[in-house]
């Protein structure tokens, strides 16, 4: 990889061209998964469990099969049993047995909405009717809905085969225990002048992407098959769907459709292998599209959690010790993001003595999936609230307190390795110097809160191809699904290196047969890793251009310079346009390519400032103003970076104030529609202000860091801290919805009234 480009020389990167896929999107020509249709296509629908926990005694499908128009019914018997161990299938470790059982229950149903059978019929309505004719006999079992329920002695055992290393051969709901430890914690607390300890609870929330999951599968008679689907990672779908369906991985082509949001929830699969097996069974293409209720009941929310956090500091605001216990709901199968939660919870701070114990706990809820900086938002709600309270006790401004303890290059991360160059301090300074933080906030029941967050970002694998056309435009082929404007950003990278306009690069997202292996659009890796691959592929094309020029001028390729689309050697000059027009006579097509596995990835920090006004009669919180400052390394397309920062902050505010899965005492989800699962709308939020901080990531050709995730981490704690400043009430449970906040306000008022009464006696 070439040395870092001097950012002052960027001509395309950092500008704001119109997105390449914009016209297709606004005219409705872009094809989303549900838009695909094929001759003789059937429609699939799922039967889902009405119970949170039950043994399946029998399934009878005869009546469903007898309904005219029904072509096939599948149950778990139609899918192979897969090994019960972690495998590197696709892009992250996956237990294939759990994945398969989550998509089609075998012996037990483990949550309300768990899939049991699927029908393929000539219309979606017939399929829906047929689903109602499937007869299932259940033995209903008591559910364990929270980590407290699932961890207590005598709790219902959800997966009888589940064991952990510490409990030996005893059935358990605790799938894993992770610990991080540094220094001498007890001695650290002895050094502290102030210690704050609180217990926090955060609700299970959904990613809330607008487009429901979908898949169209075509199984051909020759054993080859194709899936069109809305996904964040087509190669993951290929690996996982082929394993679950029991077909060879490379017999399957996955075509990623346009995607209507994912936020991590479309990194895994739900419908793809079901549609494939139905297609194999019927010989027809099969299309499946979830309803909103299906999405909320049965696809990846992120974990609810319980976190006990204790931290201490000296009077002058130096943190001395932290002791943290955290347990995350994994859902019905192991794999919550508690490990990431543990590694992020105090990541922004240099704390010499700490111990973190983290537990992954199965509960009778849907299997959790990734959601923007998975695990970190829950964690920051706890730690950033405690940090704020310690700052208050010290009488130090909350930003100054953070600056006193902020990590910088060379400080250890929670897991041990030292940070490279990072920009946490710069995000704090950005908020400190912002018009927002410098403004006065006046009026009753108003408060300002600040919080910070950390996310790792990941590198992984990406491929890119840059084909130069005869008119010196270029086509760019990548395997990264475009969730947030990455087509445009990648085209800009190619244009930068080629010295042409971004509009002269035509980017395409290719299927799994067309481009080299590329990991998911997730982990904030696409702009970074795919960006590096595109940079290198374009460099490869430039290398070929130089070779052609060298041949023509009879000089060595290293004697040829290339800048701003012009090849030169001494007084000889030739534009890219002139050279491209002659490609057929100078050695053939010019096609640059790169496939990389990025080792060095710059992590991200964000700091968010929020002003709130609390209605003390109702408990409703109004967000008056919100500003997000984030270190993005180098913004490729600032508008899309700002969009990510605004989107993450908005989702974080939703998580803070309203969003939660509400289950009844039998374990049935009660709010499986968007009227009752309350996400923020434009009426709930002000224009979110953004401050792009650019501390280039070492080892990256452009200096970019991931931008998609860390912005969701600080908002809940920032809102909680603002509420505390406005009302004096420290909220420790998410969401801080009107009933919950009102209860806390009344409790405080009651306590104050009692004190007044006592003083008057």
């Amino acid at each position, binding site marked *: 990889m070439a040395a870092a480009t001097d950012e002052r020389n960027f001509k395309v990167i950092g500008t704001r061209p119109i997105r390449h896929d914009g016209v297709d999107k606004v005219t409705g020509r872009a094809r989303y998964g549900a838009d695909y249709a094929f001759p003789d296509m059937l429609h699939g629908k799922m039967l889902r469990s009405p119970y949170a926990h039950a043994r399946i005694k029998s399934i009878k499908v005869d009546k469903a099969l007898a309904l005219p128009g029904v072509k096939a019914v599948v149950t778990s018997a139609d899918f192979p049993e897969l090994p019960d161990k972690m*495998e590197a299938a696709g892009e992250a470790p996956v237990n294939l047995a759990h994945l398969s059982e989550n998509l089609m229950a075998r012996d037990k149903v483990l949550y309300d909405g768990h899939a049991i059978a699927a029908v393929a019929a000539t219309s979606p309505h017939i399929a829906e009717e047929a689903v109602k004719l499937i007869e299932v006999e259940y033995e209903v079992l008591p559910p364990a809905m929270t980590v407290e329920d699932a961890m207590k002695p005598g709790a219902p055992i959800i997966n009888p085969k589940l064991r952990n290393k510490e409990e030996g051969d005893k059935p358990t709901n605790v799938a894993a225990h992770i610990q991080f430890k540094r220094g001498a914690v007890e001695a650290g607390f002895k050094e502290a002048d102030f210690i704050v300890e609180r217990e926090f609870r955060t609700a299970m929330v959904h990613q809330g992407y607008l487009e429901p999951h979908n898949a169209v599968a075509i199984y051909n008679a020759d054993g080859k098959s194709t899936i069109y689907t809305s996904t964040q990672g087509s190669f993951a779908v290929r690996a996982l769907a082929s394993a679950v369906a029991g077909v060879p991985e490379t017999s399957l082509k996955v075509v990623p459709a346009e995607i209507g949001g994912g936020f991590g929830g479309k*990194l895994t699969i739900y419908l793809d292998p079901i549609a494939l097996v139905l297609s194999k069974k019927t010989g027809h293409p099969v299309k499946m599209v979830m309803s909103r209720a299906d999405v909320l009941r049965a696809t990846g929310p992120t974990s609810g959690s319980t976190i006990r956090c204790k931290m201490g500091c000296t009077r002058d605001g130096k943190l001395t010790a932290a002791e943290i216990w955290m347990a995350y709901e994994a859902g019905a199968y192991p794999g919550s993001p508690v490990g990431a939660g543990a590694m992020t919870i105090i990541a922004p701070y240099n704390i010499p003595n700490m111990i973190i114990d983290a537990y992954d706990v199965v509960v009778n809820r849907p299997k959790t999936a990734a959601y923007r*900086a998975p695990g970190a938002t829950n964690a920051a709600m706890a730690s950033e609230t405690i940090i704020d309270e310690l700052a208050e006790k010290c009488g130090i401004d909350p930003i100054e307190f953070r600056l006193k303890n902020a990590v910088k290059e060379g400080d250890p991360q929670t897991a041990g*390795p030292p940070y490279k160059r990072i920009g946490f301090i710069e995000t704090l300074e950005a908020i400190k110097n912002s018009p927002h933080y410098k403004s006065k906030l006046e009026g009753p029941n108003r408060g300002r809160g600040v919080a910070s967050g950390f996310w790792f970002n990941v590198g992984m694998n990406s491929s890119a191809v840059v084909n130069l056309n005869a008119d010196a435009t270029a086509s760019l082929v990548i395997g990264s699904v475009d969730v947030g404007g990455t087509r445009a950003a990648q085209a800009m990278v190619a244009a930068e290196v080629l010295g042409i306009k971004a509009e002269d690069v035509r980017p395409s997202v290719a299927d799994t047969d067309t481009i080299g292996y590329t990991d998911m659009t997730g982990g904030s890796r696409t702009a970074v890793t795919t960006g590096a691959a595109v940079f290198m592929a374009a460099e490869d094309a430039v290398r070929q251009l130089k070779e052609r020029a060298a041949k023509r001028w009879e000089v060595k390729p290293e004697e040829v310079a290339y800048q701003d689309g012009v090849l030169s050697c001494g007084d000889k000059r030739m534009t890219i346009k002139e050279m491209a027009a002659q490609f057929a006579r100078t050695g053939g097509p010019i096609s640059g390519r790169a496939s990389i596995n990025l080792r060095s990835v710059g992590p991200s920090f964000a700091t968010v400032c929020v002003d709130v006004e609390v209605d003390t009669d109702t408990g409703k919180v109004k967000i008056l103003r919100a500003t997000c400052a984030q270190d993005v390394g180098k913004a490729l397309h600032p508008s899309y970076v700002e969009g990510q920062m605004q989107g993450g902050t908005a989702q974080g505010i939703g998580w803070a104030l309203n969003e939660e899965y509400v289950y009844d005492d039998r374990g049935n989800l009660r709010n499986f529609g968007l009227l009752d699962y309350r996400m923020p709308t434009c009426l709930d939020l002000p224009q979110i202000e953004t401050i792009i901080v650019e501390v280039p990531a070492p080892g990256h050709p452009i200096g970019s860091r991931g931008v998609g995730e860390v912005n969701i981490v600080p908002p809940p704690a920032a809102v909680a801290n603002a509420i505390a400043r406005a009302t004096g009430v420290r909220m420790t449970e998410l969401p801080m919805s009107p009933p919950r906040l009102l209860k806390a306000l009344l409790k405080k008022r009651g306590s104050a009234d009692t004190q007044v009464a006592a003083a008057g006696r």
Partner: protein
Amino acid sequence: MATVVVPALLRKLTNGVERVPVSGRTIGQVIDDLERRFPGFREQLLQNGDLKPSVAVSIDGEMGTGGLLDRVRENSEIFFIPAIGGGT
């Protein structure tokens, strides 16, 4: 020699020792050396002869990408940490 910083829950294998000097030019050889001196490491870190999918390796602050074949320098600092996925 290179140094392995032992994860907290694996320190029971090293009698509580956090930093262990190790020999080996690759991560595979380092794990062989750990196993020879502190039996149990291989079971904790490997599956089917390769690193467990849930285990990531940091060598001198860089995330390993070559599994057991990743090169280790004379004074490298090595961490075994949980693998991380992301969300958007």
